[in-house]
């Protein structure tokens, strides 16, 4: 670790000392296919070799909407020692953490045990990923913090995994994906929220996942871009479900983070929810306050891929409607739609808002001093 630290200092130019930031969406990858095996029982190693992973989609490997780049990742992010993008700590330090002065980096592993039809395998893989995050990443670089990945379709075993990790300072949140078998407000997921609330951990809901439902309410579309854009609609429906099922009413200390699904839709969704709730609240008496109030108090948003209107005042309108205290900067490293920290916010933002946006909000939410 010391050697790597010295290297990274050499890599950063003394003329470009940057203000510290938090990166709230980093995707660590496995360098090899079998990198998780040391954390898996023999039974599951055997299972993976013979049957593979049975997901809520048809492909044994890879996504049915082929990405636009290998692993949906930057072509300059392959580590020099080999392996896919995001699989080397030393290269991540050199390419992301050191030059951008990342003080807090939140790891959100994808391709884990989530979205798998065999729920026992799902739980085993998630637990393995959590051990692996400590061994390979957070124990070796104190700037990095892990997310507790849980078998999303089995609320009880997911809650058990959260309780086992509660209090471990390597972890700062629980991670779910937006697309599941049912909308995320449904009761089967409540044990996850209860355990997270008890552990004082926010629940991050990252775009993506597979739950078997078409990614539009009118069936399966044709293109990768439709899946990419569609994640923001999935996120809206998932959040609407969470609010309308009364999850925030039932778990008032629960905090949720909407990750990598944009935030531009948030004001409109809140207005629409409030307007419909005024008319239809007798159907959902457990939702006691206007939906926007729960969202304003209990939901945060990561920024990448940053909303990008032509005129900066339009962006400022959006952020004003959401709250400068609710946005968490993220790069999405090493994915292709990475947001470069120095170019995300236009000029004209106060120093206090800028600090909150890049670092302060994240440290407060994740309890990092």
């Amino acid at each position, binding site marked *: 670790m010391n050697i790597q630290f010295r290297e990274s200092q050499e890599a950063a130019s003394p003329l470009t000392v940057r203000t510290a930031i938090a990166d709230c969406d980093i995707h660590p990858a496995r360098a090899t296919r079998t990198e998780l095996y040391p954390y898996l029982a023999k039974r599951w190693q055997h299972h993976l070799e013979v049957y593979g992973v049975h997901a809520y989609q048809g492909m044994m490997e890879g996504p049915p909407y082929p990405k636009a780049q290998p692993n949906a990742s930057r072509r300059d992010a392959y580590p020099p020692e080999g392996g896919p993008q995001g699989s080397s700590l030393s290269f991540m330090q050199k390419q992301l953490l050191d030059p951008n002065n990342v003080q807090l980096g939140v790891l959100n592993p994808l391709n884990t045990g989530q979205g798998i039809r065999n729920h026992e395998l799902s739980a085993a893989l998630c637990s393995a990923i959590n051990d692996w995050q400590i061994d390979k990443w957070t124990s070796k670089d104190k700037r990095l913090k892990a997310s507790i990945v849980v078998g999303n379709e089995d609320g009880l075993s997911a809650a058990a995994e959260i309780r086992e990790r509660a209090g471990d300072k390597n972890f700062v949140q629980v991670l779910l994906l937006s697309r599941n078998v049912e909308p995320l407000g449904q009761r089967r997921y409540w044990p996850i929220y209860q355990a997270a609330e008890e552990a004082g951990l926010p629940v991050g809901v990252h775009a993506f996942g597979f739950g078997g439902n078409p990614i539009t309410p009118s069936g399966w579309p044709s293109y990768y871009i439709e899946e990419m854009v569609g994640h923001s609609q999935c996120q809206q429906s998932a959040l609407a479900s969470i609010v309308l099922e009364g999850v925030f009413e039932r778990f008032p200390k629960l905090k949720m983070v909407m990750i990598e699904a944009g935030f531009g839709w948030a004001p409109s*969704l809140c207005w629409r929810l409030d307007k419909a709730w005024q008319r239809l609240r007798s159907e959902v008496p457990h939702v006691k306050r206007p939906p926007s109030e729960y969202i304003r108090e209990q939901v945060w948003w990561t920024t990448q891929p940053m909303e990008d209107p032509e005129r900066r005042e339009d962006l400022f309108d959006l952020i004003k409607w959401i709250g400068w205290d609710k946005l968490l900067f993220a790069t999405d490293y090493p994915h292709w739609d990475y947001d470069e920290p120095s170019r995300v916010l236009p000029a004209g933002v106060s120093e206090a808002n800028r600090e909150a946006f890049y670092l302060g909000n994240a440290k407060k939410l994740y309890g990092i001093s």
Partner: protein
Amino acid sequence: MASLIAGGIDCDVHPAVPHLTSLLPYLNDYWRDQVTTRGMVDLVSQSYPQNSPITARPDWRPETGKPGESLETMQRHVLDPFQLSYAICNPLYGVQMVFSEDMQAAFCRALNDWLAKEWLDRDARLRGSIVIPTQSVEKAVAEIERCAQDKRFVQVLMLVMGDTPLGKRALWPIYEAAERLELAVGIHAGSAYHNPPTAVGWGSYHIEDYVGQAQAFQTQLTSLIVEGVFAKYARLKMVMLESGVSWIAPYLWRLHKFWRGVRMETPWVDRAPLEIVRSNIRFSLQPFDAPPEPETLIRLFEHMQSDELVLFSTDYPHWQFDGQDALPEGLSPDLVRKIMIDNPHATYPRLT
């Protein structure tokens, strides 16, 4: 509220079919027999439960029967007091929900004939939309061509949630026919419930279905744009009906950003999504899903960067506003004129 002007065009009113038996006179012997022999019940969609507060304004709700089933009441509630020159009838009867394409085609044909005879014939201000059996593109095109001979039909009507995304190439003959016959294509809120009503599955509540309409419109716009419908049918106008409007600009910023990133996947999309929307897509005014403060509304219209996107609608008899307050506060008189008169005329060439 902004002042209404006389001579406006209401682009979204909903005459109700009293009961499936009301269509019997418009069905042939075989289908009349099917309906009665099989004991078929009324086709009321879960999108609009009859007694839901959204489905009818309290003062627009009749003592008996369905809201919107009487022409005289519609005249008294909207056509006269809003001093409309035209109102476009968009029947939301649940014919899209059945799975047999033959049955769907028979019901659509009956519904369109019912609309012409029991509504359009009885008030010269009314115009119609052609409801089509989308499960069979061949039958849908035949129904469009049949009804289009009656110039009072100004639009083809589809639901925002059907069997497939609306941009899919298999549906293109519908768009070809609409463009050729100078019909707009209206996409209305509602689902055939052939897919879960959200992209993350079945929610528990009516309110979820209703809120979710906006997400359905967003995914359909993506499909229509990236499949290349408007590169192929450049003169085609599509109207998002009862879609909400406050999501349009942020949605387009996002689509635009990804299009710039991965446009190599859909090289036939030769214009920016924002430009395509400005030239080919329109939105009905109600439900106006923004907060009541005029300063927010003014910013929202600024974000759209166009005063041509929105068409006046009351969404009668659905409960979206009270009294005569169909126009939100803060609209300039120029914008009111565009929304109520100029924009609808530019969208519906048959409105003369």
